[in-house]
């Protein structure tokens, strides 16, 4: 019989890249303790939504496991594009108002 608690660990935290709670906890235990670090070692947040869905959840998992404050863990900025964009949109339109820092 599978342990219920163990089954929880197979839950997807990042649905775009199918990264489980177990993989994220392993990364944290290996010393990767910011959302950016966890992203780069597990791919959580690298998919279609670029972490818009999972990065806050991951930040809370890190905070719980390490006792660090959330503001040290979350990324300080989001990069352009803020959502997926068709290439032709950028090819044809003149837009210079997007912020990317």
């Amino acid at each position, binding site marked *: 019989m599978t342990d219920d608690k163990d089954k929880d660990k197979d839950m997807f935290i990042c649905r775009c*890249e199918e990264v489980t709670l177990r993989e994220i906890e392993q990364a944290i235990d290996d*010393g990767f303790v910011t959302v*950016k670090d966890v992203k780069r*070692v597990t*791919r959580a947040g690298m998919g279609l939504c670029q972490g818009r869905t999972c990065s806050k959840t991951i930040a809370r998992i890190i905070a719980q496991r390490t006792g660090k404050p959330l503001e040290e863990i979350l990324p300080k900025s989001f990069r352009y594009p803020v959502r*997926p964009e068709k*290439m032709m949109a950028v090819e044809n339109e003149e837009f210079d108002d997007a912020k990317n*820092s």
Partner: protein
Amino acid sequence: MTYAADVLVIGGGIIGLSCGFYLSKRGKRVFVLDSGGFADGASGACDDMILFQSKKPGINLALTFESLELYKSLLTELDDDLGFANMGGMVLIENQQELEIMEEFVAQQRSYGLDVEVIDKRAMLKKQPFLSDHIIASTYSKMDSQVDPFSVMRGFERKGGSYGMKVFRRNGVVGIDRIGTGDYQVVTEDGSIYQAPIVVNAAGTWAGQIGEMVGATIPIKPKRGQIIVTERIPQIGDTNLWSAKYLVTKLRSDVVVDLNEDERSMGLSMAITRSSGDTYLIGSTREFVGFDKNTTIAGIRAIIKQTLTYLPKLRDVNFIRAMAGLRPSTPDGRMLLGEHAGIEGFFTAAGHEGDGIALAPITGKLLASMVCRDPVDHRLDELSPNRFANP
């Protein structure tokens, strides 16, 4: 706190971690010191290529052959697939003049042992059915390969850790002291002191600043490369792709290639590679803008416009991210690898520009060999950091 080791590696990018891995494998107690997080620098904002076709016969091409062999052995040693793939590569040729220059270049590479050829339009379209009709031919090499930089870095760190290597992050180096010919004392932001007889400067784009702390001249300049990442899409062709334009300008300064003003000012040349995450990485600009690593709308638009002239089908594809990395560029296009004259025990392994991923394993292995005072490999004389000591 004071911490003592055999070797301090400054910089925890793919080069620093490779140096740390190969040094610790040889029994050295190694600390790797990094000012940022995991892959915060150029190693985390690049493409993933072990690219042969861009290289002139010479030391960079020779070392790429050796690095590829090391990557193959690392698959077992690091117990990870490393996102390794061998899709081959094609360089796209748009006119007769480019064709003649590329034919000559391919002949030189072949005589140096690279498996590469020029193929006609029909053979080209068989491998890449979506290419624009104006492309007249291409090169093809089945040797061009790739790895996932993040997997390689984590692999080096994990295996190095099993040999005792330790990585300290988010704690930049602020000073390096040395009393007489004794140990180096490296001071970090939080006031800690790390002490060792050997220091390896693997700070990439920032290697010049680290060099200054010990009076070493290191003329590395940041060259910004902007890249976009597409959504996951099915494979659109058999190989990765480059445009011949950039190579042609590098090979023949007398030839004026057809570039618009944006492309010329940003040093833009198309590279499109399929990543291990089934997305495509498309780049790249080559801009001297100091240490500014922001992406720009103008850069992203120029990349997209150029790419669509080669692969119009991609117009309907979404891109999900844009990123920029600062490639550590040197005046002669070769890395710095070796010990600084008159600064015994201070080594630099930096300045790979766009070849950091390709050359990481061989760089770490050769650096470890130098630190361990193995017999001197005179092929590497032309990489000596001392070539810039007296400008």
